[in-house]
């Protein structure tokens, strides 16, 4: 969950930036950035491993 929260942080930061910089519709930004959450969370998971 810690790693997921870090991924959420990156995701939310990206959505906020996209909305301010390019002004897309909120749904477009929120769904368009979703792969970033998967990449960061799974990337951290495979990099750090299963935290016991």
């Amino acid at each position, binding site marked *: *969950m*810690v790693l997921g*929260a870090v991924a959420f942080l990156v995701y*939310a930061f990206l959505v*906020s930036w996209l909305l301010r910089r390019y002004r897309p519709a*909120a749904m477009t930004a929120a769904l368009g950035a979703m792969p970033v959450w998967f990449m960061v969370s*799974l990337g951290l998971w495979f990099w750090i491993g299963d935290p016991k």
Partner: protein
Amino acid sequence: VKEVEFNLSSLRETRGHEYIVRFVFGGLCTVIAGLIAKRFGPGVGGLFLAFPAIFPASATMIESHEKRRKAEIGADGTERGRLAASIDASGAVLGCIGLAVFALIVWKTLPHGNAYGVIAAAVLGWAALSYLLWALRKD
């Protein structure tokens, strides 16, 4: 000390189906996280407990509420709606730091303590840190 304000009138702005969308997405994601935990282990399941399940719906609703408010006075609220959604996402960034601390407290103390006490302490930790970050950002 900065005061957190609650605007109860915004509850009336939210329509029934908007609440349903949030509850359904949130609940669905919790069920999926549980299934993933069963299949791949609790670590991976926990990862999905921090999946942004209701965020897209919330951001979209905030945008549409702002648009609706502006439309009532005959103005185009597209820009304002997107800005409001952007501010919502900025708030989520702060909440994520609190969420990470919540998870850290549960992870490190649950094996040695009472579950209710640990969860209560983690919720307090989340609330205190989120408030602190919000107050610092507001300055």
